[in-house]
């Protein structure tokens, strides 16, 4: 009960701050927490990246192996994205098969990579109908302090940029850099008391009724969107969110992905 009262007071506090365009950790509404990316951290994986957004910490590993293509796309490689919300990362995560939260996370990250055209699946064909590269993108959440989607999506594209095709291991010539065709960036916006704010931390996530994730291509086009949460948005808020997110996506892409 007293837990609920504390939660209620905290909620009111955050709503009050939002009214004044402020946030509990001092950020501006359109300000991300500190972002850091470290790539190549797992040498057993073909590509890897550790992303931190504030205290949220995600490790993404990319494994690349030969496998059979799907019958209806015999000339295309395969992307398989998986996310584990392991109980190490949060007291609210439980062991067991992925639940809807982990599945949604994986599927939104997957669509971001897929729909943005970041990977050209035709280039991942080794022998039509027989053998293609299977690209496994595994998202391992280590510390959950909100906004997993943005961290995981950023980790995924960073790990792909870091990834090699392991040709040598399968006697197919020299290892080669995986070719990455676009640089999708996901930006999540939360609605609190009518205000929109980017990169919600856990505290904010727990009270926001509605989040909207938007994924942008290099050319600033929208490659994916996902509303989640039990609330709703006005059309105006949707348009406003897109403008806000588009700007942030550009900044993040420039700072963290276009360096190379």
């Amino acid at each position, binding site marked *: 009960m007293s837990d609920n009262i504390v939660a209620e007071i905290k909620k009111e506090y955050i709503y009050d701050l939002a009214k004044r365009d402020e946030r509990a950790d001092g950020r501006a509404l359109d300000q991300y927490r500190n972002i850091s990316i470290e790539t190549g951290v797992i040498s057993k994986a073909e590509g890897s990246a550790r992303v931190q957004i504030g205290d949220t910490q995600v490790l993404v590993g990319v494994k690349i192996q030969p496998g059979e293509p799907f019958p209806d796309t015999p000339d295309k490689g395969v992307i398989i994205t998986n996310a584990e919300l392991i109980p190490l990362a949060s007291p609210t995560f439980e062991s067991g098969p992925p*639940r809807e939260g982990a*599945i949604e996370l994986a*599927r939104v990250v997957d669509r971001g990579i897929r729909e943005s055209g970041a990977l050209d699946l035709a280039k991942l064909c080794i022998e039509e109908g027989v053998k293609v590269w299977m690209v496994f993108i595994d998202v391992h959440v280590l510390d959950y302090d909100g906004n997993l989607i943005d961290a995981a999506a950023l980790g995924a594209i960073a790990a792909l940029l870091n990834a090699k095709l392991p040709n040598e291991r399968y006697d197919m010539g020299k290892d080669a850099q995986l070719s990455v065709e676009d640089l999708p960036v996901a930006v999540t916006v939360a609605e609190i008391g009518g205000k929109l704010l980017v990169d919600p931390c856990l505290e904010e996530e727990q009270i926001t009724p509605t989040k909207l994730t938007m994924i942008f291509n290099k050319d600033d*086009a929208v490659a994916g969107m*996902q509303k989640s949460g039990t*609330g709703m948005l006005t*059309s105006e808020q949707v348009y406003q969110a897109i403008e806000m997110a588009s700007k942030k996506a550009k900044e993040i892409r420039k700072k963290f992905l276009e360096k190379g």
Partner: protein
Amino acid sequence: MKGKPEKLIVKGKRLDGRKLDELRPVKIEIGVLKRADGSCYLEIGNNKVMAAVYGPREVHPRHVQEATRAIVRYRYNMASFSVEDRKRPGPDRRSIEISKVSRESFEPMVIKECFPKAAVDIFVEILQADAGTRTAGINAASLALADAGIPMRGLVSSCAAGKVDGQIILDPMKEEDNYGEADMPIAMVAPDNVTLLQMDGHFTKDEFKQAFELAKKGCAQIYEMQRQALIAKYGAEGKQ
């Protein structure tokens, strides 16, 4: 599966003869199941869906109860014979995600405070699938909720817009979904509340705006059909 047709839009008409901003034909039957508290059978184009609502009813594993309000549950399920290649029965990752976002599209509308500790269960079965099953399911579920007499803040109406051959279209069917460039299902509650919004593909910001406005118009048309169906069933006053 046949290959991609050369063009999906010829002289402003789509493969099935529709205009770009035209919905597929819709058929609605409310109250078609005996055991459910509310039900609705809905067709849109070649989609055939059945929705049933049970509740408010007791929640069984007690720890999922909420002390001050009802919980809403939503199960989207495809019949194994609903698609070209037989689907293995049971939930998969896709249906789990769809169930989640569909449930969330109803959460702000169901007046949950009326039924503390209870559950409102929404079951949607896709009997035949032809692109747009999640939106069709939401539309049917909305009417099944009304048929069950669950107090709602408004009717949820759902529809997708897409992009094919570079043009924005309303309510994509299977070929348009398979070979199109973008798909965006949304759900709306009058006057201007977005309760579901998903999108994948490639929209410039202008295209997004065009598609979003078109999808909203589609929802408005769906809403009118839903309203008429309720009136036909229960009279102008709606079910008491």
